[in-house]
């Protein structure tokens, strides 16, 4: 998910989590607002891995041209470069950085076998989609030396963590964001704070990017 030139920033921020920035504490603001700023260049993924990871993440998260500009690939790259793993790995999987490298290579390998030597990044959207569906359906079966299900959760965990950490994603789902020191006053079903907005409208059907 890279070029999204010409797209307006998501909200006018009269309501929703970004309207509340002035109420956040400094430590939280520092961490969250950094996600809106520039990102360092990639340092973990090789160009070939990047070419596979980009379309993979776009598909897992169904990114669209009119999506808010939420960086996912650069965030995962930075995490893996800093070795910020999760405190565990499956005994039948390598450590997360190695698992990413191996699974992206496997993705290209599998695509090449099925599509005359073309890589994952070179085939059509529909072909990629079918391939991912196939991998998901493998469940706990082996896929290039790793259980497919464990590869799948690795991908989706990293993708979801990067995407749903972003304030634009919070606007999309109607989440209030940081709430210290303000807190909430209106608890209970069907109640909203004056600044809380409903989730974003479901966009009209359009092909994913």
């Amino acid at each position: 998910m890279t070029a999204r030139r010409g797209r307006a920033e998501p909200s006018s921020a009269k309501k929703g989590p970004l309207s509340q920035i002035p109420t956040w504490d400094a430590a939280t603001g520092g961490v969250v607002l950094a996600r809106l700023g520039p990102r360092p260049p990639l340092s973990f993924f090789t160009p070939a891995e990047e070419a596979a990871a980009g379309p993979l993440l776009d598909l897992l998260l169904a990114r669209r041209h009119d999506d808010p500009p939420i960086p996912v690939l650069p965030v995962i790259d930075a995490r893996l470069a800093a070795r910020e793993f999760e405190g565990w790995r499956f005994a039948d999987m390598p450590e997360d950085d190695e698992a990413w490298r191996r699974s992206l290579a496997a993705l290209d390998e599998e695509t090449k076998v099925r599509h005359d030597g073309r890589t994952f990044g070179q085939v059509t959207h529909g072909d990629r989609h079918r391939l991912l569906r196939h991998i998901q359906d493998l469940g706990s079966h082996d896929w290039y030396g790793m259980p497919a299900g464990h590869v799948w959760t690795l991908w989706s965990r990293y993708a979801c963590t990067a995407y749903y950490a972003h304030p634009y994603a919070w606007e999309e789902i109607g989440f209030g964001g940081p709430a210290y020191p303000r807190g909430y006053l209106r608890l209970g079903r069907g109640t909203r704070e004056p600044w809380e907005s409903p989730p974003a409208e479901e966009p009209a059907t359009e092909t994913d990017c």
Partner: protein
Amino acid sequence: MEGPMSGKRWWRPATGTLRETLRPQGDVRARNASAWLPHVTRLRSDMRRFEDDDEVDMVVVGCGAGGATFTQRLAHAGWRVVCLEAGPFWDPEHDWVSDEAGSRHLYWNEPRVIGGSHPVPLGANNSGRGVGGSMVHFAGYTPRFHPSDFRTRSQDGVGADWPIRYEQLRPYYERLERELPVAGQYWPWGDPHPHPHAPHPVGGNGEVMLEGCARLGIRARVGPVAIANGRFGNRPHCIYRGFCLQGCKVDAKASPLITHVPDAITHGAEIRDGAMATRVVMDAAGRRATGVAYVREGRERVQRARAVAVAGYSIETPRLLLNSAGPGHPHGLANGHDLVGRYVMVQGAPQTAGRFPDEIRMYKAPPPEVSSEEFYETDPAKPYRRGFSIQTVSPLPITWAEHVAAQGHWGADLRSRMRDYVHWATLGALCEFLPQPDNRVTLADETDRLGLPVARFDHSQCANDDMLMEAAQKVMEDILRAAGAGELMTIGRYAHLVGGCRMGRNPEEGVVDSDLRTFAVPNLFITDGSVLPTQGSANPALTIMALADRAADRLVHGRVPEAPARKAARR
């Protein structure tokens, strides 16, 4: 099930609650003044420091639920105590954030390997690191165990009997509930009891659970949570911001960092942060512990002590003991009967979510709101033994995305379900999985940054475990449907860790005795969650604290036969 209260007892909850609420707090303050002292961040600058060569009375490894409680009690009684903590000494205002992804530094993220037929993810799911331990980011539920939990073997033919009875722990439950303090309605299950603070108001998720349970005639209660309701000493009221699992910046939710460390520091204990224990140091014959080796700022050092308590939780405590093999202990310290690292338990924690037409906004208010222990005990009509409890859980967006993705949703499907976040309510169960010898911690071949072998945790479910998961899911689905839910989604999960160095009546049965002292080494104690022989379906933190409190109480009053510190002092 809800029914008219039996004739003459109806007033008990009312008077019990009234008495508890009106109780003067003088004894609490005399025992533990933490809530009335200046903030821990300020106390720290004047903290007493010991030299490595000072032979302190006790060195404690780990400053979490068990370690911090034990440290405070001993220091309060005048013992000279150093507590080594691998993680940082938190300053809530600057180190914690009101944000999910920005809180990963609270967890134990060092490498660990998980295996078995049902591997249990660690890290954010169950292990903290830093002063306050896992309670820094625990949800805050603080139920007691039921009396039946202490004798499941003789009563239900499964699990193990504890070497102590519930009644021996009750006074410690009571005093800790007052120190945290615990807020909630009168508790009708197990040993019925009132709570010191009134129940909190509930948000949308809590309303759903109360309504669904009411419709089905299942008793549900608000609480019990270690979150002050009203001012408690210098600690302020909860602001209902919902980030309890990211560390409470407000200081409304209890963690040892604010509930026991302040009093420990004012009584001369040293909490040494950034100090990763690598080995318990023994005398040449391997009979007595003489201190703990640890790495701080890149240097290995040894803190000398008359006695040692290990409180690193169910993964790190066995790992430390296994890494401390030496003369007299070839297979790991106190592991003569091959029990160290065995019988590690997690609770099966299936999570069921329901979609409602109106907005629930489950992220508002603390995730721990309402619970039911209606299904806690063995039901003879059921094919399984023991039971489960049901509680509200309120995942924030990233955890919620994992919930949705774990259902197999991805792409446009995932995004559109996520867009619906504010309409979902989520319940979680805690199923009492049974202790099994092969659910165990061992050392893996790989090493960490310090060159120490990392822990490997293998876990598999037994048939009883599977049946509990299914039964709990069914009840949660019924509750959500009764409250008006349309679509439902359930994922399988695990929560909490206990066991790994269980207590028993003799060395064949346990690593430690009921005083939490190892059978193998008279001046080595284990004062954390790893000593639990069974886990009930209650969240474990309060019980871990109560066990550490009881052990410390008996130690300082000389009730531990041949109290090792004394014996050493007589030398």
